[in-house]
């Protein structure tokens, strides 16, 4: 799941937001125009408005998982709804594949949603009167595909999310985890390029949540979509994200890779989240490795640079020599020594200060 963004993808983001504002309430537009882009939640509140999203600018690249993390009321879901145009953005620009989303007519918007976007909802948003199969086939039928074709495709999706044998169940007959699998299958049925997930696992039990996260990563391994994932669970964000945007009161406090967020929290607020996080479970070897000084000092053991430290710690600790760190092609790109891991696990927090 590593972030391998090639140069041309950097140039052409799939989703691009620039100075997006969402203010709820009457006179929102007028107030915003008066404020010259400097929005203070308090003055707006006095005027009877609530600031949902405050000057959000960022890009999401192809095949990337961007997780928007924030507590309830931080504006994360509102941001997602702006980008899917489920709510109207008060001000700013949003581009989907270079097209101006906010300028689209409702007809164009319907086309984009039918072909490019899929969305998963916190409480599943399944149609209670339709069976699993009918729910999954719903977006296809809406598009006007024949019943035969859409049912065939829906059946494939049922298999993809592992619900075989439950095609004719109604949502009410399924557990939460199974219902969300239906939600996922439905959102993927039209093969969208962009996948929105709005707290998809928050309504599930912890064990099921873990299982569904694994399932999500497995699917993404196969499908490689461009993903905007909203969650209030910091650990979930760390587990799934290529990059994380942390929001507070509508403002994106920090947008960075999980490692950087843990290692270099930009604000006090972000630091509070990272305090309790066991670093070895978040960071990859690449963020603690050292350059190879002398190749002859390396032992026989090799670890991938993308391995989470925790998963290889035991092996590295049993190796007295320096351990070679290799990239995906098997080339040695660095080394690591058991002492570094011990520092990581039990020692000073600044042991990681000198790495990228």
């Amino acid at each position: 799941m590593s972030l391998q963004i090639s140069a041309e993808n950097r140039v052409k983001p799939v989703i691009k937001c620039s100075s997006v504002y969402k203010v709820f309430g009457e006179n929102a537009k007028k107030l915003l125009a008066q404020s010259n882009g400097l929005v203070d939640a308090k003055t707006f509140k006095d005027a009877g408005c609530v600031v949902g999203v405050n000057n959000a600018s960022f890009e999401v690249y192809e095949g990337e998982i961007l997780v928007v993390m924030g507590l309830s009321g931080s504006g994360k879901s509102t941001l997602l709804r702006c980008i899917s145009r489920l709510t109207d953005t008060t001000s700013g620009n949003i581009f989907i594949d270079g097209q101006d989303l906010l300028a689209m007519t409702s007809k164009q918007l319907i086309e984009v949603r039918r072909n490019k976007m899929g969305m998963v909802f916190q409480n599943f948003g399944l149609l209670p009167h339709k069976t699993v199969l009918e729910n999954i086939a719903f977006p296809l039928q809406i598009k006007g595909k024949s019943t035969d074709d859409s049912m065939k495709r829906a059946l494939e999706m049922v298999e993809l999310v592992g619900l075989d044998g439950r095609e004719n169940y109604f949502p009410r007959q399924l557990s939460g985890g199974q219902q969300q699998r239906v939600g996922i299958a439905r959102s993927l049925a039209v093969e969208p390029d962009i996948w929105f997930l709005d707290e998809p696992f928050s309504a599930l039990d912890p064990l099921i949540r873990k299982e569904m996260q694994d399932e999500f990563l497995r699917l993404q391994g196969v499908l490689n979509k461009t993903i905007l994932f909203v969650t209030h669970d910091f650990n979930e964000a760390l587990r799934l994200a290529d990059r994380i945007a942390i929001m507070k009161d509508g403002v994106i406090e920090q947008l960075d890779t999980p490692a950087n967020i843990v290692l270099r929290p930009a604000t006090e607020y972000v630091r509070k989240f990272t305090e309790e996080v066991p670093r070895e479970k978040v960071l990859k070897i690449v963020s603690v490795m050292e350059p190879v000084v002398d190749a002859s000092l390396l032992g026989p053991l090799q670890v991938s640079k993308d391995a989470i430290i925790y998963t290889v710690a035991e092996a590295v600790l049993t190796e007295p020599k320096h351990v070679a760190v290799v990239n995906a092609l098997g080339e040695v790109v660095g080394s690591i020594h058991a002492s570094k891991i011990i520092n990581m696990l039990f020692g000073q927090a600044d042991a990681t200060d000198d790495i990228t």
Partner: protein
Amino acid sequence: MKFFKNHPKYAQFIGLLAVFFALYLTVTPSETNILWRFPALFAGVPGGINGFAEHLMYDWFPVEIFDPELEEYETSALVREVTRGFSRGVLFCIEFVREILLGGVKTIVAFTSWDFVGDNKWAVWPALPWTVVSGGAILLGYALRGKALALLAGLATAYIAIFGQWEPAMETLSFVLIAAPVSCLLGLFLGAVAYKSKTTETILMPLLNVAQTMPHFSYLIPVMVFFGVGDHAGAIATIIFATPPMIRLTLLGLKRVSPEVVEAGAMNGCTNAQMMLKVLIPTARRDILIGTNQVIMQCLAMAVIASFIGAKGLGFNLLLALNQLRIGQALELGICIVLIAVVLDKLSLAWANKQTNYFADDSFVQRHKYGIFFLILLTTCVILSFLGKLIFAGGINYFYLIPHNQGITTEPFWQSGVDWMVENWYRGLQTFNNWLIIDVLMPMKAAYLGMPVSATFVLVMGVGFIIGGLRSALIVGGFLLFIAFTEWWDRALITAYMTSFAVLVSALIGIVVGSLCAQNSFASKGILIVCDTLQTFPSFIYLIPVIMLFGVTDTSVLIAVIVYATIPAVRYTVEGLNSVPATLQDAGSMSGVNKLQRWVKIEMPLAFPHIMLGVNQTVVFALFMVIIGAMIGTDDLGQYILKALSDKNGIGNGLMLGLCVAFIGLAVDHLIHTWADQKKAALGMA
């Protein structure tokens, strides 16, 4: 004193009662005393309405219309021509369905002429043999749901045929089959429009409030004026009456659809139409189906009432039987109406819940098996009815159509039952009857009639003020003022007395029975089923047994009202008590409450707001029934509405009287709803 400091509302209430009784005792009854009765300022309004309606129907916007029979142009009012055309359309639809079921020539006449039918003896549409309709109902029930529904449909149709009520039943059915779908679609459409547009909703809501509290009879008069008399008028009155609950429930259902489902629909790229038809309406299905169920029930309830303006069928016969005091026959007819209601209700429910199997790789025969079955059935039954002609030569062809009142009947049995009861129980019932009338009802009625109008206003507006502040006081005061300015204030007092007596008894019975049944989950379920079943009965049915027992007296009316109005009180009590959260029940158990303490300290306080909503329903039900009681003979508003019905210029009186009844209902509704909302909010349940 400390008590009143802590509960200022009680102090206010006691003060209010003091003022009320002071006024009651001091104001002298005299026609000129404005504190005793307000002058009838609105006395001229009904005449104005009559004039307006007449102008609209006969003079306004004259147009030239070609009369094909006289073959010349004549001048007629636009409204009249429009309503006439509409009436013809509805009538054609009803007769079309009726002739499919019963045979006839009117449909053929509609496309040709009476002369054509006269000249060509073959041009008669034959009736479907009853066996085909019955078999078709069974097949439909089986296809939609399964054996149980098939059995129900079979028994119901067989009962109707065997008891010789086939013709009136099919007449009623033909009119329900037109009125019910139209009401449903109209309600669905208006509900959807109200959901989409806030303005429509704001305009529609007060209209619905009035429409749902207006007594049935009041609808008949304007319909009669604008559409004439006959089956079509009955159907139109039924549609007007049955649509409001459908609109309301559609709107309620649509509003309850979770926002995520709507968002999911939007993200799947639904157009507006797809959103409404494929996402919103199906998701709101539960409430919409309750609406459909209400429509069907209202249609059959109106089957009786619509017979006042010429709708043929079971209702008409039932009315006739009641008038002749033929209890047994009325009972059999009543059962027919109930059976049709139940079967239609279950069929529509099953139809809405039907599932499709997409992967059944069926052959042609498999896919069309029900159609083929029906064809076989049709052929067999038609052949059978021809054979029947030979078998029952000269007599009645029992395989084709059992003529009216030629089936078996249990009437003698019921009649002898009634006779037996009259013989053996007469003294007891009569003693009770006399006691009730002389010692309870008469004094109560006198007390109501002896109430000065000023005292009534002080009491009602004061209660409004204590419950909902100045706003409520003004709202209920406004409703009352309307009634006070008409010339029927005394009649309204009588309606109020009958209603309040019935509501008191109903609420008491309802709360006690409901509370007892709620103690046990089995009993709760049982009593809810009983309530469901009783609610399916058209209100008229309740008059049958009470006339049987008490004859034509006020007691009969009141007992019918009480029985009918107790249903919602029981239902809401059971529902309210059952919805007390389990954690609170557990907390109570762990504190060691006994059954009585649990009821008094835990269940009642929490369930009471909901129970009061039930009492509100009780009031509405009671009002309706009191008005229908005019059939038996009362001297309240209902009787005057009934009189207006037979009056050529009754439209003004009828509407004003209807509004009077509606406003009594709405005033009570406003008070109880305001109170219950506050209470629920205070308990954190809103």
